[in-house]
């Protein structure tokens, strides 16, 4: 594909760049360079805080909803606004819809081609592929030889012409591809069906988010959405029934296609990919998809001095004071051997229940994905609390300067954050960035430590927090794929976590839709709390934070309000966590660590690096630059 010469650094959806040093056939060191969100703070500062979300959502083309949501939550947190249950449910459904379709698109359309050699699919036998499909995806109707022949024909039109179009960037024929021709064809067929899937699923956004792809229905205080039995558009009974029907379709695809496919991929590639790419082993999540309506705390709780009171406790995320929950550490250790076939059965019917066992402390949050931190890959370890006050960013190795006394290496909380760009990298065009500062991404840290965010973090924390449906999902996956618990922390585990999470969210979307319908039928039509809409009701100054567990990981927006205007705004986004550079102490970021040790068969075709970094679902196109000191020099490879 031809690239138009726009400096990546000036593009919002810019490029991720990796510089990789290879030694003896393995990645020895990594530098992650990214361009993101530079200056969003300046766009929003000075504006009406009620309008901040409209600008914030434009920061990213794909993740519009999560930025809108984080922004309204931040302002609601600052102004102590509690959204009504119906607004919470609509927000959950909108965020869930994005997560489900985004995860499916990531797996099939962005990541699967790292594992699936589509050119090899041309030599598949449609008849035996159909047999494979009936075994792998027994609950999916499209499994006939005629269908796979048709898919093969579609593929042939691209490959046969000699011009691969969207597939022209693949490393086809690379020796690291391991699937059989039939397996490749099966995956490509589902690649096509996933296009249809996402096309349908996104219609929920049109119903609840407004007609345009950019959501229009968010409002500080709730949702600005028709909600009632007689409204002509928005959430009326007919449209809610449609939402339910689409959610059911999404669940069916997730159950019958996505999960079995990911298990198949895991079985084929677990050696070595279930033992590679673990990375930092520290996991953080703010928690999300609130199942109860409590006062908006932006999803993260800041404990008062002396700890939490007995009510208003977030519940999840704190186990250090509760030894009772630490006694089960080894009970699952023997369950992961062998290749269980009952994987799908593990998840049936779980969408209708939610475990409140650990959360019924009165008024606290219950999130589908609990907040917390797990360190050192302890799947059954303590879940430590997450307090947003401990999140801070350094620019020691980033192209910014802090004006404060502490210098660039200090860790600044987002409320005190500064965004003063000072480029000190090489003058383009360049081959390698050898300057001390090497990225536009800041380095977020929690208590100074590096953390991974995203699906693997969410499910690891949920597992450690002993959420039954999360434990069941993870154990079922490990059993079905024949993985040890240690192998959960790997490239394969990251892919599995994303698929399992898709299924969990799809299950719950049906519940949320049913709750909305029940509320409406029962006469609860509240959709927004407008009591603090007028700026005259606000304090002179306020500050708040809003967090969202976005598809790629933990997203936070921090806002300061002064004289009814935004006086400060900072975002810490998932790819900044995972793709962060080194900090002042030289600690590498999450995927910088995960890539070290990855084997490379052919440094000029670094497929293995892509597998590892794509398992994080980075939100940018990715160009990889491989440096081989002992070899023939430098290779630059551009991959989208």
């Amino acid at each position, binding site marked *: 594909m031809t690239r138009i010469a726009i400096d990546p650094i000036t*593009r919002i959806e810019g490029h991720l760049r990796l510089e990789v040093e290879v030694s003896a056939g393995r990645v020895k060191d990594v530098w992650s360079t990214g361009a993101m969100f530079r200056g969003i703070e300046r766009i929003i500062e000075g504006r009406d805080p009620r309008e901040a979300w409209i600008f914030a959502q434009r920061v*990213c083309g794909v993740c519009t909803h999560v930025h809108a949501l984080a922004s309204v939550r931040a302002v609601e947190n600052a102004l102590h606004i509690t959204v009504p249950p119906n607004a919470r449910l609509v927000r959950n459904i909108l965020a869930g819809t994005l997560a489900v379709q985004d995860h499916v698109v990531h797996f099939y359309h962005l990541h699967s081609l790292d594992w699936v050699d589509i050119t090899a699919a041309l030599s598949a036998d449609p008849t035996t592929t159909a047999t494979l499909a009936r075994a792998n995806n027994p609950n999916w109707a499209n499994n006939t030889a005629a269908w796979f022949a048709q898919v093969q024909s579609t593929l042939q039109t691209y490959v046969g012409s000699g011009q*691969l179009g*969207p597939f022209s960037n693949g490393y086809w024929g690379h020796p690291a591809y391991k699937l059989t021709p039939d397996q490749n064809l099966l995956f490509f067929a589902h690649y096509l069906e996933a*296009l249809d899937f996402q*096309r349908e699923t996104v*219609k929920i956004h049109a119903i609840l988010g407004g007609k345009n*792809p*950019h959501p229009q229905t968010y409002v500080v205080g709730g949702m600005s959405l028709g909600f009632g039995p007689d409204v002509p558009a928005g959430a009326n009974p007919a449209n809610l029934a449609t939402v339910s029907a689409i959610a059911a379709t999404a669940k069916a695809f997730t159950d019958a296609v996505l999960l079995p496919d990911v298990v198949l991929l895991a079985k084929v590639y677990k050696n070595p990919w279930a033992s590679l790419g673990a990375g930092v082993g520290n996991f953080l999540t703010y928690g999300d998809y609130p199942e109860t309506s409590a006062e908006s705390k932006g999803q993260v709780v800041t404990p008062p001095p002396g700890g939490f009171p007995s009510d208003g406790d977030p519940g999840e995320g704190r186990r250090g004071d509760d030894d009772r929950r630490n006694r089960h550490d080894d009970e699952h250790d023997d369950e992961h051997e062998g290749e269980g076939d009952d994987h799908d059965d593990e998840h049936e019917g779980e969408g209708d229940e939610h475990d409140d066992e650990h959360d019924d402390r009165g008024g606290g949050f219950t999130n589908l994905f609990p907040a917390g931190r797990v360190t050192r890959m302890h799947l059954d370890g303590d879940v430590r609390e997450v307090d947003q006050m401990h999140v801070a960013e350094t620019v020691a190795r980033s192209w910014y300067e802090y004006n404060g006394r502490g210098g660039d290496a200090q860790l600044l909380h987002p409320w005190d954050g500064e965004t003063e760009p000072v480029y000190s990298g090489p003058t383009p065009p360049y081959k390698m960035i050898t300057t001390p500062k090497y990225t536009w991404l800041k380095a977020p840290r929690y208590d100074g430590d590096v953390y991974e965010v995203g699906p693997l973090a969410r499910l690891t924390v949920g597992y450690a927090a002993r959420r039954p449906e999360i434990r069941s999902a993870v154990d079922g996956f490990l059993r079905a794929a024949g993985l040890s618990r240690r192998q959960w922390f790997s490239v394969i585990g990251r892919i599995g976590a994303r698929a399992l999470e898709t299924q969990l969210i799809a299950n719950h979307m049906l519940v949320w839709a049913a709750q909305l319908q029940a509320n409406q039928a029962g006469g609860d039509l509240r959709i927004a709390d407008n009591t603090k809409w007028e700026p005259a009701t606000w304090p002179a100054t306020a500050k708040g934070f809003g967090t969202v567990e976005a598809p790629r990981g933990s997203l936070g927006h921090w806002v300061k309000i002064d004289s009814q205007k935004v006086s400060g705004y900072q975002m810490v986004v998932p790819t900044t966590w995972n793709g962060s550079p080194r900090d002042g102490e030289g600690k590498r970021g999450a995927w910088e660590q995960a890539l070290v040790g990855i084997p490379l068969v052919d440094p000029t075709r670094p497929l293995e690096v892509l597998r590892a970094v794509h398992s994080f679902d980075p939100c940018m196109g990715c160009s990889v630059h491989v440096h081989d000191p002992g070899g023939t020099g430098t290779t630059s490879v551009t991959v989208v």
Partner: protein
Amino acid sequence: MPVQPWSTLVLGIGNLLAGDDGLGPSAVERLTTLANELPPGTDVVDGGTCGLFLLSYLVGVDSLIAVDATEFGVLPGTVRVLRDLAPTESIMSAPSMSVHQAGLADLLTAARLSGCLPPRVTLVGVQPSVIADMTIGLSDAVSAALDVCCAAVIREAWAASPAERDLTCA
């Protein structure tokens, strides 16, 4: 196949926070106020930078008119129309296509793969001057071209539509 009314989709593509990259959304905003000059059955959508996620908007569309900042290598503000775009390799490899090349090309290719590619695809492109992140507002040159751009969209929409344009109302 059931007979359905002719459907036109005007899809503005680009990022409002990136200077002239906001041409598409800005044109959509302008065209929304000119809705009665467009043929019946026309939807005007601000697609932002949503790429693949716009696929559902293409279902059932007879005529797609994409509006985008486009690198033609000419003077900023120049408006050009590319008709009957083939969403094939040619659009991927053309050296001077939309600066959202990946987004638009991916979208059209995905549409082709999933069988919802509109029969007619037109690109109304405007040569950008400044593409810079976190800059709201078009450059003077592109801003001045908005009227021409919107007029081109309206003309192309009618040209593709079977409906007769009643110029007395225009």
